[in-house]
């Protein structure tokens, strides 16, 4: 299938040049859960060149309300293996590399990736992810809790760090409330910003997009 036919709807929107940028791009998705499963799927459907997926989890029943790559037959299986299988079924042209690991202080991002999506669910791993990025890398952060979510882009070495911005925030005890619709909306904003970053025009650089899902309120906070 020629890419001009496969991707013709989005080429109508963003043009051939940008499609070539997408197909030449490499992105790392940290965390293939509520945000990462959807963001990675949108990148793969758009024809991203190469995707790194980082996670160490197994598919559990409570994941199924929002983690759109998984279904009942996947319970107990490694998320990364299932995700890769599903994503390759969607688009086998994409190169997908799996990094089966928990992100901690030893994490180092692969050297061929400079656009990273923080789809993690805890601050400790988020801070370790940022530490493991090369200077100049773009980090697209996403977070959601209940009906509130946010997306932010930072450039390592030029922006304030996530650690600096989020100092004093606490990791909630127990499970974090989240719905499928909420996670999918925030993941959609993240994917949109990932494409903007691939095109060299991040719209949320040093700027939170804060989304109120309950009253459908969007606002910005510069950092």
């Amino acid at each position, binding site marked *: 299938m020629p890419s001009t036919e496969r991707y013709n709807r989005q080429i109508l929107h963003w043009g051939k040049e940008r499609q070539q940028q997408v197909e030449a791009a490499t992105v790392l998705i940290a*965390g293939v*859960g*509520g*945000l*990462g499963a959807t963001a990675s799927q949108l990148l793969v459907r758009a024809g991203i060149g190469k995707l790194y997926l980082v996670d160490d989890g197994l598919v559990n029943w409570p994941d199924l309300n929002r983690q759109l790559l998984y279904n009942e037959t996947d319970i107990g299986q490694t998320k990364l293996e299932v995700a890769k299988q599903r994503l390759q079924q969607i688009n086998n042209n994409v190169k997908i590399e799996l990094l089966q690991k928990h992100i901690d202080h030893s994490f180092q991002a692969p050297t061929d990736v400079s656009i990273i999506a*923080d*789809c*993690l*669910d*805890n*601050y400790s791993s988020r801070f370790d992810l940022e530490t493991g990025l090369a200077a100049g890398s773009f980090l697209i952060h*996403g*977070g*959601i*809790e*209940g009906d*509130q*979510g*946010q997306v932010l882009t930072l450039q390592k070495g030029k922006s*304030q760090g996530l650690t*600096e*911005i*989020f*100092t*004093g*925030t*606490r*990791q*909630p005890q127990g499970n*974090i*409330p*989240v719905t499928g619709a909420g996670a999918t909306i*925030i993941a959609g904003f993240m994917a949109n910003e990932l494409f903007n970053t691939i095109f060299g025009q991040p719209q949320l650089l040093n700027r*939170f997009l*804060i989304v*109120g899902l*309950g*009253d459908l*309120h969007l*606002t910005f*906070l*510069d*950092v």
Partner: protein
Amino acid sequence: MIKVQFYSLIRILLKQEKLELSACENENVGQLLQRLQRQIATPFLHKLLDKKGEPILGTIIMVNRRNIHHLEKLETPVADSDVVALFPPGAGG
């Protein structure tokens, strides 16, 4: 004037996005927030501070884009044209 911006659950609690207060001489951000609560008559500091008046982990308090933990915490001075932001971020992913 000092602009105070409310985000996420703080915005919903206070039913407004921002408020402007005149600057007071030698005021810090902790004192500003106390004054703000008196002015709007809606209790919200229990969401930000514990009984000892120390910041509760959960809400980012920024003065001019900087987290007050990297400034002088609640002692951070505020003056005319400063922007204070109160933002409890979502932690999940």
